[in-house]
């Protein structure tokens, strides 16, 4: 088991890629701290994954709510668990051509995709500092690496995640905390299923491997980055897109 005795915090854990990561990590022996806004889904996921061998706890929290995150991390600190892994998966996507972009849209996307991710990284890395080791995996997107029409705000928020990942990896490398990013392409999740059908068809046609990615495809790469298999890898952005061309 690749994550035996490791403890991972996963945001956006209740569905899609986050749920797939939680499931795979549990199979690999990790203790899990699951965070999502959806308490009922977290409760259900905990029941699903609980095999009596790993510790699984969850917190209903919006990562844009700093006061709530403070409570969550105070609680985590008191468990005295060593935090080894943070998967910054929570994210929101909303499309708009630039002339229709409102300050509220920018705020909504950046609060979660950028500011919440930074806050989570700050709090979790503080716990990792104690043991001089850890792995942070940030979810960016092929839109952040390549861009897409109608997605200047979402795309730029995901580009910010890449810049943050690269700089933080340099800051924390000396204390053996690795920071990497994963850039999924077109993955079969509720978020992509809510897309405009016109874009959905176009995206499908642009995937070299001819199929949508599954959340498990992304989770496996995140597992690699979380585990010691990638012990000498930091500051990298790994695409998981089946050869998608944008």
């Amino acid at each position, binding site marked *: 088991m690749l994550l035996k005795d490791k403890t991972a915090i996963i945001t956006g854990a209740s569905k899609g890629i986050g749920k797939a990561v939680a499931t795979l990590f549990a199979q690999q022996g990790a203790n899990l701290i699951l965070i999502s806004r959806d308490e009922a889904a977290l409760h259900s996921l905990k029941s699903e994954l609980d095999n009596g061998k790993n510790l699984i706890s969850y917190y209903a929290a919006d990562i844009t709510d700093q006061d709530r995150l*403070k409570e969550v991390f*105070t609680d985590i*600190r008191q468990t005295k668990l060593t935090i080894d892994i943070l998967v910054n998966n929570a994210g929101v996507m909303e499309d708009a051509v630039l002339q229709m972009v409102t300050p509220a849209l920018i705020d909504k996307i950046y609060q979660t995709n950028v500011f919440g991710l930074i806050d989570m990284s700050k709090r979790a890395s*503080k716990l990792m500092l104690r043991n001089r080791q850890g792995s942070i995996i940030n979810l960016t997107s092929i839109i952040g690496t390549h861009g897409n029409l109608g997605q200047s705000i979402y795309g730029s928020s995901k580009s910010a995640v890449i810049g943050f990942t690269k700089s933080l990896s340099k800051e924390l490398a000396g204390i053996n905390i690795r920071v990497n990013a994963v850039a999924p392409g077109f993955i079969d999740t509720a978020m992509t299923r809510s897309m405009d059908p016109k874009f959905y068809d176009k995206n499908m046609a642009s995937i070299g491997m001819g199929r949508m990615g599954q959340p498990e495809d992304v989770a496996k790469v995140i597992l690699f980055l979380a585990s010691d298999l990638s012990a000498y890898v930091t500051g990298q952005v790994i695409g998981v897109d089946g050869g998608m061309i944008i």
Partner: protein
Amino acid sequence: MSKDNSEKLVRAFSTALEIDATTVKDDLKYQSIPEWDSMSHMFLISEIEEAFDVEIDTDDVIDLSSVAKAKEILGKYDISF
């Protein structure tokens, strides 16, 4: 209690900055010695949080510029010296 806390604080500084405990005096200031740089400051915060079971706010992390200041800041978290 106050003496215990003083000893805990000295130990936190000594461990985090990897300096001799005798060097940890009230007037020891951030960046006044090579061992207390921005990175070791993060270790220091982590050690202090662990020692006193508190979570130090970012404003206080920035403000914690000397041993004396550390005592003053910890007062806000109901730790007395």
